[in-house]
């Protein structure tokens, strides 16, 4: 399974492939459609699609003559979920920081330093 995940990351590490994925979020496209905006050969775009396909990010319909490329949104959503998890972890940390900052404000209030004997380094 590690390989599967690595392939997803590696596939999305390339700017052209990220662009292809971005365009596929709107609609399915044929290889010709996808290749049109790029100044590279159809073959090069097919290679990019192969990488995305191996990562499970896109599929190609077997039946239809045009064989449009389809984005597997569920795999893509996984990335979004990870980002949300990362955000939640950051937020947990910052909530703790909120509490620390609130205590810091109390400490700054005069006459609350009675437990500190004179001469303590500040």
């Amino acid at each position: 399974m590690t390989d599967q995940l690595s392939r997803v990351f590696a596939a999305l590490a390339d700017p052209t492939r990220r662009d292809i994925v971005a365009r596929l979020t709107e609609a399915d496209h044929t290889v010709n459609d996808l290749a049109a905006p790029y100044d590279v050969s159809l073959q090069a775009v097919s290679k990019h699609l192969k990488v995305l396909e191996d990562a499970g990010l896109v599929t190609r319909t077997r039946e239809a003559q045009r064989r449009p490329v389809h984005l597997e949104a569920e795999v893509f959503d996984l990335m979004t979920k990870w980002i949300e998890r990362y955000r939640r972890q950051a937020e947990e940390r910052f909530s703790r920081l909120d509490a620390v900052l609130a205590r810091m404000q109390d400490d700054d209030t005069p006459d609350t330093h009675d437990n500190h004997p004179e001469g303590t380094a500040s």
Partner: protein
Amino acid sequence: MTTMQTPDTATRFPEAAILADEHVPAIHIWRDFDATPAQLFRAHTDPEVFAQWIGPTDVGADITHWEARDGGSWSYTARGEDGREEFETSFHGCFHTVREDRIVQTFTWDGMPDGVALETMTFEDLGDGRTRLHAVSLCDSFEDRDAWLSSGMETGVNDGYAAIDRMLAAGDL
């Protein structure tokens, strides 16, 4: 993927907002605090204060080295429980710039010792008693950045694997 935008000043971040930059392997975080820039600066540079919030909730972090000045360095170990598993994980880096409104430092997770991110934290006075933290972590590569985003320590990746397992089992992949 998301598009990089600098939030306008009217936007408020009572909760952390995260953005994975699409052009460079960076992660942005914004968060507003009910504090002065000086207090936020202290929370990031005073090791006793830092240890109280950086680590996991139950234990906190063990600061093993701390020299918050230009050219200084730092390291800490976080211990805690993640579900039933106990974990211990450590980080280290160098302080490049330590200034009241700005801290620039390197950041390495010791589990991946060759990976290093450049972190820039700015403390912006919002003028209403609040201060905005903007943290940018610039990673070595998109792979590293995405691995970092997906991990959030160990659990994220494992959950990710489990989800992929389920999708494979269901024939969705």
